[in-house]
């Protein structure tokens, strides 16, 4: 049966219950306000893709897959490769998700990932040119939300980074570029902070999402700079709250980034070992 939304069934009483918990820095699932759920990153789950990673953030599951092809550059950037980010919400991931193209929420998640990578200049698109003005590398990054239990935003950002870090160029492209993988200049990670009442919490759960006044996603790079921000929902934030969110994004982003880089590094050395053994 479809689950009634918590907002509808539990209403104001549940909100007061949440706020009472927050007051003592506690959440319903036992976390502190600045604590993420358990993160699991599994690179290479789709071997036919040129890069892939499945991310489990608590019970939220996201899969990112990369296909790399070559083609004509955009007319206004003849000396740059192309990055295209697609977003898909599997209809079994949440009762509200409908088959077909994503709604404004799904588009929003994809845009935050896209801007975090693009504006952070994580990929040097200038290095992905095979023949200027004629033939460049096209990176198709497609993200699928498989199970939505809250904060699909950060799970998507983590899956995207892990897939990019572990992707390999197809042989013909590797040959014309003289390298076999995407060299990342930066490692963007988004951190999403929710606001309920006067409380800020990272990595909102699905139950918390029902009660959010507003939500701010901030993508940081490893050097502490911010490469994208997006505030959503109908609530408002004070200047002080925004600055606290940025602080949280730096601190939590560092933890998440370290976890992703560790997994990617181990995966790549295991892959290299496999190749050497063959």
């Amino acid at each position, binding site marked *: 049966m479809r689950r009634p939304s918590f907002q509808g069934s539990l209403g104001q009483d549940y909100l007061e219950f949440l706020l009472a918990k927050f007051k003592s820095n506690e959440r319903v699932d036992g976390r502190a306000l600045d604590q993420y759920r358990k993160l699991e990153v599994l690179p290479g*789950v789709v071997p*036919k893709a040129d890069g892939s990673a499945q991310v489990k953030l608590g019970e939220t599951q996201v899969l990112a897959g990369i296909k790399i092809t070559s083609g004509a550059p955009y007319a206004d950037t003849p000396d740059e490769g192309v990055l295209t980010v697609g977003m898909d919400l599997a*209809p079994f991931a949440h009762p509200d998700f409908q088959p077909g193209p994503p709604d404004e929420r799904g588009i929003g998640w994809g845009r935050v990932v896209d801007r975090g990578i693009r504006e952070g200049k994580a990929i040097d698109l200038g290095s992905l040119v095979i023949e200027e003005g004629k033939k460049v590398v096209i990176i*198709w990054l497609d993200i*699928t939300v*498989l*199970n939505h239990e809250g904060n699909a935003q950060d799970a998507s950002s983590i899956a995207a980074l892990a897939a990019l870090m572990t992707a390999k160029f197809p042989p013909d492209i590797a040959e014309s570029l003289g390298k076999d993988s995407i060299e990342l200049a930066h490692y963007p990670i988004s951190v999403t902070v929710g606001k309920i009442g006067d409380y800020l919490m990272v990595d909102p759960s699905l139950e918390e999402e029902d009660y959010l006044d507003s939500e701010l996603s901030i993508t940081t790079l490893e050097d502490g700079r911010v490469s994208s921000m997006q505030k959503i929902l109908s609530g408002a934030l004070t200047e002080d709250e925004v600055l606290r969110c940025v602080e949280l994004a730096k601190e939590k982003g560092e933890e998440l980034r370290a976890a992703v880089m560790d997994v990617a590094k181990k995966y790549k050395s295991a892959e290299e070992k496999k190749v050497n053994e063959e």
Partner: protein
Amino acid sequence: MARLSQEELLTDEGIRSDGRKIDEARPFEVEVGVLTQADGSALVRQGKNLILAGVMGPYEAERHSQYLDRSSLRVRYHMQPYSTNERKSPTYSRREIELSRAIREALEPAVILTELPRTQIDVFVEVLQADGGTRCASVNAASVALADAGIPMRDLVTAVAIGKVRDTLVVDINDLEDENGQADFPIAMMPNKGKITLLQMNGLLTQDEIKRSVDMAKRVIDSLYVVQVNALKKKYAPLAAPNEG
């Protein structure tokens, strides 16, 4: 897609391009209940196919799509852009619509729709990696997901594609055999009922080959069925065990 000759698809010794014998199915694994938001779910690995099926429902159908005497079953088969050798456009294709229907009609005979009047059951199949015979692997995943959702059923549905390479019938064809072979003959059955619920064929087969194909399919289906049942037991047998103490 690589071009292979019939001799490359089957050696004189009867070995196929991926090392299998003619009557050898690909590795088959089923995991039940891998999603929390779906009412039932199953992840199937059949060869390099990686297929996730999720069932939502039963829930009250919209007025215009309500049947007074039974449930309406909807099936949506969808391929992810990164699931294939060449990137697949995310736009929904005619092929996906055709396969959605074939899968729905393969499942419908097994689901006791009259038990759930006025409701709707949605079966969503996401192909995460495709390796030939995706419709069969999708049926295998979807029927287990329906059972996991607690939908009343007469039997599970189990499917396999028979093919023909170098004038020889082979079971559970992969991508290369599908592309370069002489026939693709997907068959789904309710194994306990001995009834066929999905049947399509592309290629050229003789009457005798059709008879032998069905026999070969039956044998494979029986072995795949055991894997499906065991996967369900793995989740549900502990719940059914009597309380100790």
